[in-house]
């Protein structure tokens, strides 16, 4: 039975269904990443503020996100919203809210450290050449910031993809759920299916994340040189 277990992956549309399942959590990751990108840039600018109270609030926000496991945040939003706001958030929406909340903090911190890593003479030289504030930001500061940000940004994306695997625990039908369905459906024909299905999901995640982490590593090396 063991060696025939692998065939279960290719029965009917099983293989396609697994990828579709993975797409569900990938979509959550991509949407949250897009939102975090926009909000994170704003957040990063706010974090460089000179106002002590603003900085303190940002710090608290960042610490909360850093300390609370993402799964706890998911539970808070998923169960909390149903009870207090009386709205029944679907798992997808709850996940997008949580991952955007998390991503914005992380992204904000990245933007902040990139912004403060640009030496002030870059600004001063720009002004000295007669550029306006907008021009300095647009042509001098932002291009350099983006270059420095890119590796950690891609890194954040892979973390986001890996963390969205948690959504199965708040009832979203994604790759693990589809895997379970396949295992249950073939319980009598191929009892060894679990090994192959979970193995396949493991490899699928690897195939998605590995290219990103390579790109990030290459970019990081490029910046150092």
């Amino acid at each position: 039975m063991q060696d025939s277990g692998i065939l279960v992956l290719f029965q009917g549309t099983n293989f396609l269904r697994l990828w579709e399942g993975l797409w569900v959590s990938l979509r959550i990751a991509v949407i949250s990443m897009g939102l975090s990108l926009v909000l994170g840039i704003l957040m990063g600018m706010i974090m460089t503020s000179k106002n002590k109270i603003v900085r303190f609030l940002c710090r608290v926000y960042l610490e909360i996100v850093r300390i609370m496991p993402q799964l706890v945040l998911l539970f808070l939003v998923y169960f909390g919203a149903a009870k207090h706001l009386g709205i029944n958030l679907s798992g997808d929406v709850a996940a997008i809210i949580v991952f955007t909340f998390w991503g914005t903090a992380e992204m904000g911190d990245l933007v902040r450290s990139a912004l403060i890593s640009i030496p002030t003479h870059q600004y001063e030289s720009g002004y000295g050449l007669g550029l306006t504030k907008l021009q300095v930001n647009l042509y001098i500061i932002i291009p350099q910031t983006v270059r420095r940000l890119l590796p950690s940004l891609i890194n954040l994306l892979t973390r986001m993809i890996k963390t969205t695997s948690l959504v199965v625990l708040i009832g979203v039908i994604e790759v693990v759920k589809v895997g379970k369905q396949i295992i249950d459906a073939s319980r009598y024909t191929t009892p060894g299916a679990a090994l192959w299905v979970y193995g396949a999901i493991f490899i699928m995640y690897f195939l998605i994340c590995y290219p990103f982490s390579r790109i990030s590593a290459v970019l990081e090396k490029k910046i150092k040189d």
Partner: protein
Amino acid sequence: MDMEFIRNYYPLYVEAAKMTIVIALIGIILSLLIGLLCSMIKKLEIPVLKTIVNIYIELSRNTPLLIQLFFLYFGLPKLGIVLSSETCAIVGLTFLGGSYMAEAFRTGIDSVSDIQLESGLSLGFTRWQTFLHIVMPQAIATSIPVLCANVIFLIKETSVFSAVALADLMFVAKDLIGIYYKTDEALLMLVLSYLVLLLPVSLICTWIERRARYAGFGNTGTVSGN
């Protein structure tokens, strides 16, 4: 908010937290050992082992812990390897943590210049001696911020253990919500438990980082988290 309910059920959280601490502690210590070993193998460029270590690091860093756990808990029994929930949790956490710790040590080791290694060798130390007595002490000081971030990351990751039927904090919270519909109380205790667990660790980490920096050989660079 039902205080009576909280009074009655908080011992469940204490039990769960105790178990989380034990598993996290074992997992972190094993991760540190594996990380150290892997980083040594990489630095000393031991053939074959080096390739295995590289594959392991890439596999472990590019897959979610939850999927690793599912594979260990539901997949492996089909090969005749049956692990209990606890063993599964520890093996999973170590598998994940080992590679993160290895990378943390590696950044530290890379920051020690080759002159140090060469000087050691020319003084007649063996490669292992040079590594243990000269490179490592300097490297660890540099690695500390990342190591600390990894410890926090690994403790946070323990929250997925409920998926392999381990009665951890998430499991207790979900149970109480399911049985009594006391959502607020259960979630409040959940958040407080994690705060009690992680806030001291986070503060200790900040303190250690400052000490390492104060000693003058700690690199103050960025903490990359997971």
